[in-house]
C-alpha cells in the first residue's frame, strides 16, 4: 500500500534548503511510482523547534525531518559544537573533516534513539558583519555593540574585546533600526530575507564561514523499521541523491558573489574583508573558545573535537 510520511522543515519556503527538500520528496515519490509519498510541512508549520529535535523525533509524528546539529546546544552539547565559527575557513578544509563529522553525528543521533537516513550539505556561507556605520577592522568593532547568533560566538568576540550579545531573531530588525546594537554577524545570502539591508548598510566579510556542519536527515526509528525493504532502499537512494544535489561547494563562491551584488543594488556598501591579522586573531580566539566549550560539555565533546582536529590534520 501507499506509505505517507510527514517531513518537518522549519526553514522558510524561500530558503535553498527548502527547495532541496521539496525536490527530495518529489524524487522519492517518482522513484517509487507514487508508493512513498512525503508531505513537506515547511516554514515551521508543525510548530516543532529545532532545539527540541531529539525529543520530538522519537514520537512518530513527523516521520522524517532535518536538523542542524548546532541547534542542539541544550540537549546534546557534544553534537552542537563539532565546529565553531572560526574552526574552518574553506571548503577544502571542511571536506577533510566531513567524514569524521558525519560519523560522529550518526553515532550521536542513534544514541538518542533517532535514525539517520543521511545528510544534506550546508553550503559554505560567509559570516559577514552588517553594521549601521562602517566597521572595517576589529579595532572599529570594539567600539560598537555586536549581535551574534550563538553562545560560542559571544565567547569568541568577548575574548577579542568586542561587546557581543545574542538578540532574539524577532527583535533583530528593531534592535538594528534603533541602535540597540550596531552590527550583526549574518550571512549575505540570507540578509535580504530578514530585511537586514534596510537597517545595516555597511558590510565587511570576517574571513570565516558559519560552521558548515551538514544537516542531519532524521527518521523516526520505529516508523523506519516498519518500512518494507524496497521502500527502505528507495529512501536511502533518494537521501543519497539529496546529499549529492546539496553538496556542490563549487557553487558557493558564485552564490556569495550574487548575494553581495543584490545587497549592493539594495544600497549596502561592501568594505574590504577584515585584514589578515584580524582574521588570525579571530581564528585564535575561536580555537580557544572551541576548547573551552568542549571542555564544559564533557568528555564526549572533548573526544569529538579531537577526532575532528585529527581529521583536519591539526592539533591545538
Amino acid at each position: 500500500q501507499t506509505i505517507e510520511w510527514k517531513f518537518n522543515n522549519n526553514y522558510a519556503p524561500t530558503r535553498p534548503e527548502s527547495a532541496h527538500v521539496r525536490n527530495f520528496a518529489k524524487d522519492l515519490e517518482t522513484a517509487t511510482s507514487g508508493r512513498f509519498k512525503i508531505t513537506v510541512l515547511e516554514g515551521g508549520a508543525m510548530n516543532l523547534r529545532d532545539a527540541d529535535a531529539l525529543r520530538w523525533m522519537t514520537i512518530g509524528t513527523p516521520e522524517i525531518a532535518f536538523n542542524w546539529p548546532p541547534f542542539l546546544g541544550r540537549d546534546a552539547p557534544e553534537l552542537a559544537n563539532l565546529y565553531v565559527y572560526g574552526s574552518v575557513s574553506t571548503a577544502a578544509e571542511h571536506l577533510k573533516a566531513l567524514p569524521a563529522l558525519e560519523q560522529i553525528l550518526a553515532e550521536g543521533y542513534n544514541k538518542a534513539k533517532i535514525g539517520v537516513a543521511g545528510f544534506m550539505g550546508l553550503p559554505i556561507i560567509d559570516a559577514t558583519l552588517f553594521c549601521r556605520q562602517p566597521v572595517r577592522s576589529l579595532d572599529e568593532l570594539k567600539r560598537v555593540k555586536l549581535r551574534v547568533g550563538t553562545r560560542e560566538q559571544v565567547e569568541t568576540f568577548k575574548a577579542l574585546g568586542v561587546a557581543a550579545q545574542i538578540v532574539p531573531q524577532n527583535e533583530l530588525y528593531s534592535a538594528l533600526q534603533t541602535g540597540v546594537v550596531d552590527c550583526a554577524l549574518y550571512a549575505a545570502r540570507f540578509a535580504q530575507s530578514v530585511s537586514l539591508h534596510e537597517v545595516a548598510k555597511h558590510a565587511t566579510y570576517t574571513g570565516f564561514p558559519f560552521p558548515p556542519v551538514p544537516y542531519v536527515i532524521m527518521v523516526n526509528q520505529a516508523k523506519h523499521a516498519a518500512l518494507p525493504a524496497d521502500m527502505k532502499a528507495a529512501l536511502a537512494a533518494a537521501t543519497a541523491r539529496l546529499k549529492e544535489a546539496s553538496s556542490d561547494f563549487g557553487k558557493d563562491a558564485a552564490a556569495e558573489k550574487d548575494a553581495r551584488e543584490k545587497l549592493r543594488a539594495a544600497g549596502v556598501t561592501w568594505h574590504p574583508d577584515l585584514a589578515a591579522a584580524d582574521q588570525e586573531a579571530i581564528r585564535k580566539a575561536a580555537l580557544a573558545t572551541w576548547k573551552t566549550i568542549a571542555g564544559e560539555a564533557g568528555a564526549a565533546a572533548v573526544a569529538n573535537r579531537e577526532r575532528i582536529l585529527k581529521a583536519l590534520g591539526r592539533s591545538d
Partner: protein
Amino acid sequence: MAQAGPAPERPRLDAAVLLLARALAALAAAAVAALAALVVASVVMRYALGAPFRFSEELAGLLLAMAAFLAMPLTVAADLNIRVTLLPDRLSPPARRALFVFGQLVLAAFGTVFLLEAWTLADFTMARNLKTEQARLVLAPWMIAMVAATALLALFAVWRALRPPPPPG
C-alpha cells in the same frame, strides 16, 4: 479582584489549600519582580556600561515560566479561571452540581496528563543534566517546579469538586 471562594465544609483543609496557593503565588510575584529588575539591569549594563549580560534572555524566560506556573494553583483554589457558563447557568442546582464535578474532572485529567508529560521532560533533563544553551543555567529545578505546580493544579481541582459550585455568573 473577586474572591468568591467555596463555602467551607472542612475549614481547616480549605484554609490550608488557600494558604499554600497564596504562598506559591507570592513566589510567582517575586519572579515577576525579579524579571522586571533583570530586564532593567540588562538594559543598563548594555547601554551604560557596554557590557551586556549573557544570561538575561534565558533567565528572563525561566522567570516568566515560573510566574505562570507557580500562580496557577491559586487560580483553581480561588475560582479565578475563565469558564463558559452559558449552559450551567441555566440548569437546576443538582444538575449544575453534577456538571461542575464533571468540569473539575476535566481539569484534573488535564492537569494529570500535563504533569506526567512534564515529568517525562524533567526526567530527560535530569538524566542528561541539561543546562540552558548560553548561560548554562541548570534546568532541572525549573522543570520540577512546573511538574509540582501542575500536580497541585490537578489535586486542587479534585478538592474543589468536593465543594459547592460557584454561584451562577
